[in-house]
Structures are given as C-alpha cells and as structure tokens.
C-alpha cells in the first residue's frame, strides 16, 4: 500500500494551469469552427440536391461511427503520406473540428427542422432577402431552440480534447503525463487533473449559459 503525496504535483501547479488554459483554448477554437462546419453541413443535408445531401450524410456517418483517436491518427500520421504535414496543435484542432462538427450538425438540423415553414413564408412576403431569412428567421431561432443540446455536445468536445495528448499536444492531460514522468506520482497527478477537468466543465457550462442569455435574450422573456 502506497500513500498519496500531492507535494510534487502541487509544486508544479503552474504547469498544470498552463495545460488547462491550452485545453480551454483548443476546445473553444474547435467549438467555433465546429459550429461553422455544422451549420454548413446541416444546410447541405436539407438541400434539394441529392449529391449534396449524400456528401453531408457520408461525412456525418463516417465521423460518428469511428473513434476520435483514429480520426486524429489519420490526420496527424496519415496525411503526411499524401504530402500534407501538420504540426500536432493544428492537427488536434482540425480533428476536433471535424469530430465536433458532425455531432453538432445533427443537433442544428433538428433545430432548423423545428422552424415553422409559415415563418419563412411570412419573411418572404415581407420582402426579406433569402440571406436575411436564413439569418434571422431560420438559424437564430434554430440555434436558440437547440442550445442546451449544443452545450452538452461542447462539453463532450472539451473532454475529448484530452485525447490529443496522444500526439504530444501539451494540454492538460499531456502536461499530466509529463509530470507523471517527472515525479512518478501517477495517481496523484491524474486525480488532480480529473478534478481540474470537472472544474473546466463547470466553467464552460456556466459560461455558455451566460452566453445563451446574452445572445438569445428572447428565450428568457416572460409573459
């Protein structure tokens, strides 16, 4: 029986915090990119062109039925074979974007489908341009409706960022692996970073809930 000794871990707290910041950064950037990809793919899925729909569905199913770590390896280890070499950090963000985009697009599609056709027709009869109709009548209320599901999805994306430590990105788990190597206090390190992830999740959840109030104030009107 060994005893837990957190001394070596706590004295390297600055490293862990820098790792947590990188985790948050790559997750937020990937979320933003994933949102763009997801919106595009959701619209493609509702297109009247068969080929466009097929491409969207093929992308979603390919991502959703394979593990994230394999997608990451294809991008980081595989793409150099066809002359596309990326550093670990961009590889990680790219993989997380594709991964998050596939799941988020299903959520956004559900949101778009929940918009009443009559609203679009009303917008058209008011003389709104197609772009304005898409922006104000379709996508904004759609995102507002599915925001809670998107929050859950983004939390999963934040957690999956730990996997990119496998291609030596120095985010929280990667830093944890380093400290584990330095101190051999493996159990302590991983207990501490587990707690830090729970904290990051709470932070993200709180932040996104605030954002929801800011961006979709109409959801919180009473009366």
């Amino acid at each position, binding site marked *: 029986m060994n005893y837990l000794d957190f001394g070596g871990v706590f004295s390297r707290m600055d490293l862990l915090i820098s790792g947590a910041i990188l985790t948050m950064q790559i997750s937020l950037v990937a979320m933003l990119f994933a949102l763009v990809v997801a919106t595009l793919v959701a619209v493609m899925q509702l297109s009247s062109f068969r080929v466009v729909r097929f491409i969207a569905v093929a992308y979603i199913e390919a991502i959703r039925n394979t593990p994230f770590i394999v997608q990451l390896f294809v991008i980081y280890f595989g793409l150099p074979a066809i002359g596309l070499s990326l550093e670990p950090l961009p590889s990680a963000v790219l993989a997380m974007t594709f991964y998050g985009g596939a799941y988020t697009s299903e959520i956004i599609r559900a949101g778009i489908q929940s918009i009443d056709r009559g609203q679009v027709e009303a917008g058209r009869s008011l003389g709104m341009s197609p772009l304005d109709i898409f922006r104000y009548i379709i996508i904004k209320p759609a995102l507002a409706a599915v925001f809670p599901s998107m929050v859950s999805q983004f939390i999963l994306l934040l957690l999956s960022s730990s996997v990119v*430590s496998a291609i030596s990105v120095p985010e929280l788990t990667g830093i944890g692996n380093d400290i584990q190597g330095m101190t051999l206090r493996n159990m302590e390190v991983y207990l501490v970073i587990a707690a830090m992830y729970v904290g990051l999740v709470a932070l993200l959840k709180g932040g996104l809930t605030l954002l929801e109030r800011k961006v979709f104030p109409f959801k919180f009107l009473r009366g």
Partner: protein
Amino acid sequence: MMFQDFTMAHVYYMLNGLLWTIGLALIALTGGSIAGSVLALMAVSRNKLARRIAKLYIFVVQGTPLLVTLFIAYFGANYVGVDVPPLVAISIAFSFYAAAFLGEIWRGSINSVPMGQSEGSHALGLSRVDSMRFIIIPQAVKIATPPTVGFFVMLIKNTSLASVVSITELTRTSQIVSNATFKPLQVYLLAALFYFLVCFPLTIVSRRLEKRLHKS
C-alpha cells in the same frame, strides 16, 4: 531501417485487435448495466441521500475525460495494494464509465413513463416495488432500448482509448502495424473502416428502434 510490407498477416493481427475491442465493450456493457441500474434506481428513489449520491457520481464521471479515468484505474491498482493485471483494471474503469451514462439514460427513461401509470398502480394497491417491477420498468425498457444501443456504439468507439495504456485492441494493433510497415494512412483508414463496419449497423438498429417507438 527496413520496414515490413503491409500484408494480410497484418490485417489478421488488426482483426484480432477488433475482437478485443468488441470484448472490452461487452464487458463494459455488462458491468455498466449492473452498476447503472442501481444508479438509475437510486436517482429515482425517494431517499434524498441516494438521489444526491447518484447525481454526484454521474456528474463526476461524466465530467472527467475517459482517458483520465483510464489512467487513474491503470495506475491506481498499485495504491489499493493488489496486483491487478492492466486488462482487469481497464475493464473495471470502463464499467464505472458505462455505469454513469447508462444510469443517466435509464433514469431518464424511468422518468419519461407517464405519471398516470404509477398513480394507477398505486390506486390498484400495488406496492412501490411491485409498481416499479411490473408497471414502470417494462415500459421504461422500451423507451431505453434505442439510446442504450446508441451508447453501446459510443462504448465500442471509446475502447480505442485503451490503446493509450497498451491494451492491444484494434487501435493499438493498428499503431503497432503502422510502426512496422510505415503505411500510417492505409493502416488507420483500414482501422476506421473496421470500426465503421461494426458501429454503423448498430447505429441503424438504434435509429430503427427509435422510429418504431415514436410510431407506437
């Protein structure tokens, strides 16, 4: 340094890894089902403490990356003072992980059985346990099946993380083959294809069950 050619022998080695992938997912599903049903019952029980514990457990496990949970299990065996083989430690970690998700799915399913059902069984004089057993759970199982199959797909994909702690499932065997042949693109795309061939049919099944449920 010479690399090996990428041959059928390597493909068979990867398929052997696929068996471990499926085996690990099945172990996690079994272990997770047992603990998950206890968690779900705790989460809907009248006991406030039981509800709190279940909720906290689910929050902590779902808020920790699976990879970190795996590390804790992998290294943690030392601290308990028993010599546990890595495969056993990892199986236990996956079971704990699955329990949190299944507990949450099943709690939701139990709660989505209409209130009138439990009121009705209460009016008929059934005890709380009997009403759970004969009225609520049978209906909840129907609601729970599609998301449970969906979670099983997620479990199969997530066993890939066991590769990081050297369990020779599909992703790990692919890594080994990739290092030996230096054909990373082909090897990892083939691995992705294997995962897809296992997961996609299950995804379809889950979706069909879901549709059938909405029709009835």
